[in-house]
């Protein structure tokens, strides 16, 4: 138990600095609602935390596993729909719907993983993208999912912990709690046996197999854990937006934005997802809104694309790689 706690709260290269950064980050986020009154800024903060959460989960298969999965939105959708449908039809408390969403995401991922991991690199990426699109179309087509109209959750008049509905400040702390839980889980995971084996598979599959690692098995497990982590964020989206439809929780854009967040921030590092979300989400919410307000729709996408091109050409390990490179020189 003591060892587990040490693993969760200890960091790699610069343990003291990284612990300080985490505490400062947590302090800023905790104080944020008391420092900033703008409702828009608070919404940006929640979206930042949500995407940092998504990115953390995707970093497992995409960063540590090196498998470019472009279908994470399907898992977000499973989580979101499990929560929404169970609350609407069965009046199940929110906290019981979360494991159900995670379970279905894991089950589906396990079922599709074996055939998918017969493919490699971009073929694998295309397969994940297709599977996610099929699910989105099915959720639009089916009646029991509400089809394209989506699902509306009942609005509670007062803050409610059973169904996790409250004001903006409540959601702020709620998503921060989920984020920290996943952050610390990932920090533990990277030091676990499976974490090392997954990185070995990413670096060299032949070498990994020669060391007794079941390469496909390791990828499948990582893919399933990633799915479960994505579903958790999806459940939050349901109670936060109080309305979901396939275009909101399962679109291709979402899958790509999640993957992009990790790549921009730094794939395969514990800080990458946070940095990526901090770089992309405010850019989208402020710059995008400002440009669209001036009638320049789509300019923000050009800026997005430009940033990604620069990162891909100059530092494939993302902003975190850039920071590490500079701190080594300095």
């Amino acid at each position: 138990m003591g060892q587990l706690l040490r693993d969760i709260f200890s960091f790699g290269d610069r343990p003291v600095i990284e612990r300080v950064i985490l505490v400062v980050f947590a302090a800023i986020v905790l104080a944020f609602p008391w420092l900033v009154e703008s409702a828009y800024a608070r919404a940006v903060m929640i979206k930042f935390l949500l995407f940092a959460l998504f990115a953390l989960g995707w970093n497992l298969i995409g960063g540590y596993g090196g498998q470019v999965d472009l279908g994470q939105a399907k898992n977000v959708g499973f989580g979101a729909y499990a929560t929404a449908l169970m609350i609407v039809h069965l009046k199940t408390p929110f906290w019981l719907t979360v494991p159900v969403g995670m379970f279905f995401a894991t089950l589906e991922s396990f079922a599709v993983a074996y055939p998918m991991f017969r493919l490699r690199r971009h073929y694998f990426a295309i397969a994940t993208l297709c599977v996610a699109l099929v699910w989105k179309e099915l959720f639009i087509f089916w009646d029991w999912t509400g089809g394209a109209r989506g699902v509306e959750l009942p609005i509670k008049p007062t803050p409610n912990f059973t169904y996790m509905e409250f004001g903006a400040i409540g959601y702020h702390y709620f998503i921060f709690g989920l984020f920290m839980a996943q952050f610390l889980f990932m920090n533990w995971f990277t030091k676990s046996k499976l974490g090392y084996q997954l990185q070995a598979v990413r670096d060299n599959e032949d070498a990994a197999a020669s060391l007794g690692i079941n390469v496909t098995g390791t990828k499948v497990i990582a893919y399933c854990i990633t799915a479960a982590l994505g579903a958790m964020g999806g459940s939050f989206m349901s109670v936060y937006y109080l309305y979901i439809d396939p275009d909101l929780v399962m679109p291709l854009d979402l899958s790509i934005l999640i993957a992009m967040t990790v790549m921009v921030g730094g794939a395969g590092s514990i800080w990458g997802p946070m940095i990526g979300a901090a770089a992309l989400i405010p850019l989208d919410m402020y710059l995008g809104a400002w440009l669209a307000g001036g009638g320049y729709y789509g300019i923000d996408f050009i800026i997005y694309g430009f940033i990604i091109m620069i990162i891909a050409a100059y530092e494939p390990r993302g902003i975190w790689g850039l920071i590490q490179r500079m701190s080594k020189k300095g």
Partner: protein
Amino acid sequence: MLLGVQSLVKEFGGLVANADISLELEHGEIVGLIGPNGAGKTTLFNCIVGYYKPTSGKVLFEGEDITGWPAHRVARMGIGRTFQSMKIMPLLTVEENVMVGAYCRTGDRQIARRDAHEILELVNLTGEAHASPTELPIASQKRIELARALATKPRLLMLDELAAGLNPLETKEIVETLHRIKEERNLTLFLTEHVMEFIMRISQRLIVMAAGRRIAEGTPDQVAKDDRVIEAYLGERYAEGR
């Protein structure tokens, strides 16, 4: 008998890379596998450790039929290997590379780390434990591969061209290291090599392959005088004119 290969055949399309190979290794031996380029040495290695499925024939290890087992099961069974073209894991540190090997036998990080450090000491890499492997010279990278394979606690260690790319001094050092780890870890060694200096010095017994077939076997001295071996390496005319 520790390892037995019985009438092993491996074909790629129409090309016969290994034709009817049989051999046996006893516990504690150091056996070298030599032959000119394209003789099928690496193919035979890959068939034994599960990277290729043999077309026909059998591979036995400690009495168990391991023919066609996937590579990770063969590794867990107790056969370690290094690669001709090095396959270091570049984003992990030296220590982590070796720890991944140690995780083959344990789930506990403290034990894996302790095992890794013992082995790094054995191959003289303690000082580089936290370095990035790609920043180290070739000789050190070869030692990482060796350490990583050792960390899986094999009983048979198969080394594919371990001395390739090393200078004579480095070769001498790695021979000493191999002797030391063989004694300390009670290993059986099976090596392929181009560097004759290296393999003649270390092997107790040599098996010679040419064009996919086993053509000779014996002590290094016997093999060096064998006409078929000289012919395979230097050509028929040289062998006749001698």
